[in-house]
C-alpha cells in the first residue's frame, strides 16, 4: 500500500444556494481544490452524496459531475452512506490511490437540500433509517437522536444544561469561519431557551440542513512534492458499521462503529488518542458529540458531556472539537459533511484556519457518522512539518 497525501482542498460556503444546482456546487468545490493542487487532470472522481435522487431527481451523478467539471471520460462514481457519504467517498479515493490503480484522485462531497422542503425532505433524510421497522412508524432523524438522548440523560442523570457547551463552542468557532452557515456566537441562556423539536432535542442541539460542497485532491505522498509544499498526510482511513436500526444495537447508547473505526485508525496511524491535537467530530446533534467522544476513547460511557462542561473542547482546551463551527454552526449538508470535516482538518494542519488556527496542529482526526450510527468513518491526518 502506498502512503497518501492531500494536495488540494476547496469548499463552498454552506447555506441556501438558490441559484446553484447540485452540479454547480460540486464544480465550485472541485475547481477550487484542483486549482489549489495545481492540477487540471485527475484519474478518478468519487462523489459523496446522499439525496440527489430524492431531492434533485438525479441519480448517476458521477459522470454528470465529472463531465460538468471538464473531466469527461474519467472513472467517476457516487458513494452513498447517508450522512457518512463524505467519509465513505474519501475512503474510496484512499483505496484507489493506495492500491496503485489511480495516482491523482478527486473526492467531492456535495448535497443540494433546499430544492425540497418540509415533510418530503424529512422523509428523504429518514430513508437512512430502517424503512420497514423504523421509518414506517413515523420516526424522523431528530426523533432517533431524541430517543437516544432521552435514555442517555435518564441513565447518567444528566440535564439539558450539560449539553449546552457543545452548541456554544460550535457557534463561537463558526463565527470566525467565512464558509459557516451561522456566524454568530450564542450564549448558554440562548441554548437553554431554544424551542423543543423532539423532546429533549431542542433547536440548538440540532445542526441545520443546507446546501454545500467540499473537495480534496489526493495522490501518493512520494508525488505530493511535485504539486505542493503543504501536503497533508493521510495517516489512517477506516470505516465500520453497526445495525441500521437503533433498536437492533447491542447498546443503543454506545456508537460501536465509532469505537471500531477509531481504534482501527489509531492502529494504522500508530498513535494514541491523547496525541491528537484536535478532533472534527460529527455533532449533528449534541448527543452525537458526546457519544463520539466516548467511543473514540476520550471519555468513559456517560461522561462525554464533561469535556464540554469543563472547556476541554474549546480552541484553547485539551481536545478542541468543531474548530470551524462543526455541523452545528458550519452547517450539515449531509453527504458533503464528511468532506467539510476533512477540508477543515487540512486547513488546521496547513496553518490556514484563520482566527481559529490552533497553535499546535500536527495531528487531527475526523469522524463522520451515517444515519444514527450505522456507518462511521474515521480519518487521521498529519501536517507535513
Amino acid at each position, binding site marked *: 500500500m502506498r502512503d497518501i497525501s492531500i494536495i488540494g482542498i476547496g469548499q463552498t460556503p454552506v447555506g441556501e444556494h438558490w441559484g446553484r444546482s447540485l452540479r454547480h456546487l460540486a464544480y465550485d468545490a472541485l475547481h477550487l481544490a484542483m486549482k489549489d493542487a495545481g492540477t487540471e487532470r485527475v484519474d478518478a472522481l468519487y462523489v459523496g452524496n446522499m439525496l440527489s435522487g430524492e431531492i434533485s431527481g438525479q441519480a448517476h451523478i458521477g459522470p454528470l459531475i465529472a463531465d460538468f467539471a471538464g473531466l469527461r471520460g474519467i472513472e467517476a462514481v457516487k458513494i452513498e452512506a447517508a450522512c457518512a457519504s463524505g467519509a465513505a467517498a474519501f475512503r474510496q479515493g484512499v483505496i484507489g490511490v493506495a492500491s496503485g490503480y489511480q495516482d491523482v484522485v478527486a473526492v467531492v462531497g456535495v448535497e443540494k437540500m433546499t430544492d425540497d422542503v418540509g415533510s418530503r425532505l*424529512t*422523509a428523504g433524510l429518514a430513508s437512512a433509517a430502517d424503512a420497514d*421497522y423504523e421509518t414506517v412508524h413515523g*420516526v*424522523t432523524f431528530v426523533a432517533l437522536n431524541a430517543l437516544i438522548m432521552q435514555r442517555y440523560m*435518564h441513565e447518567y442523570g444528566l440535564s439539558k444544561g450539560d449539553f449546552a457547551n457543545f452548541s456554544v463552542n460550535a457557534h463561537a468557532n463558526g463565527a470566525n469561519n467565512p464558509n459557516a452557515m451561522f456566524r454568530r456566537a450564542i450564549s448558554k441562556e440562548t441554548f437553554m431557551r431554544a424551542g423543543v423539536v423532539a*423532546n429533549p432535542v431542542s433547536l440548538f442541539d440540532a445542526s441545520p440542513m443546507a446546501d454545500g460542497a467540499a473537495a480534496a485532491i489526493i495522490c501518493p505522498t512520494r508525488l505530493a512534492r511535485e504539486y505542493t509544499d503543504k501536503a497533508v498526510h493521510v495517516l489512517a482511513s477506516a470505516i465500520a458499521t453497526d445495525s441500521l436500526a437503533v433498536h437492533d444495537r447491542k447498546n*443503543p447508547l454506545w456508537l460501536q462503529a465509532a469505537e471500531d473505526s477509531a481504534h482501527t485508525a489509531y492502529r494504522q496511524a500508530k498513535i494514541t488518542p491523547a496525541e491528537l491535537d484536535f478532533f472534527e467530530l460529527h455533532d449533528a446533534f449534541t448527543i452525537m458529540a458526546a457519544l463520539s467522544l466516548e467511543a473514540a476513547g476520550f471519555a468513559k460511557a456517560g461522561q462525554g458531556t464533561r469535556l464540554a462542561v469543563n472547556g476541554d473542547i474549546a480552541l484553547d482546551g485539551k481536545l478542541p472539537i468543531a474548530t470551524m463551527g462543526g455541523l452545528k454552526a458550519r452547517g450539515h449538508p449531509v453527504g458533503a459533511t464528511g468532506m467539510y470535516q476533512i477540508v477543515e482538518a487540512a486547513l488546521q494542519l496547513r496553518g490556514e484556519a484563520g482566527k481559529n488556527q490552533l497553535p499546535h496542529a500536527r495531528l487531527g482526526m475526523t469522524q463522520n457518522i451515517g444515519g444514527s450510527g450505522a456507518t462511521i468513518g474515521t480519518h487521521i491526518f498529519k501536517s507535513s512539518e
Partner: protein
Amino acid sequence: MTVEIARHWRLNSQRYSLIGEECPACHYKIFPPRDVCPHCAEEAGPEFHFSGNGTVFSHTTVHTPPEGFEAQSPYTVALVKLDEGPMITAQLTDVDNGAVEIGLPVEMVTRKLAEQGDEGLILYGYKFRPQMAMA
C-alpha cells in the same frame, strides 16, 4: 404507489401479530425476523409469537413529521423493550404526548400507521399503549 402493496403485504405477520423467530442454536428471540441470528450468527429458526408486552426504554414526541404522518402530528414514538428480549421502535397510543415515563409497562395494539395520500395505501400495524391493568 400500487407497486408498494407487496412491500407492505409481506410484512403482515410482523406488523399485525408481532411474529418473529427463535434461534434454534442460542434460543435468542428475534424481532423482526431475519435470515441469520443477530446474537450468534447461526441460521435463524422457527416462528416465535411475542406476547406484545414490554416496557418503554425511551420516548420522544414528533412535531415535524415526515410525509404521510402529517395528520397524526404531534405523536409519541418509543423504543419498547419486549418482555422476551428484543427492542423495537413503535408509536405509543392512548397516552398524552409528553406524559410518558421510561419504564412504563406497555402492550401491543393494532392501529393505523400511515396514509399515503388520497389514492395510496393505508398502512396498519403495531403500536403500544399502557398495559390495561396499569391504567
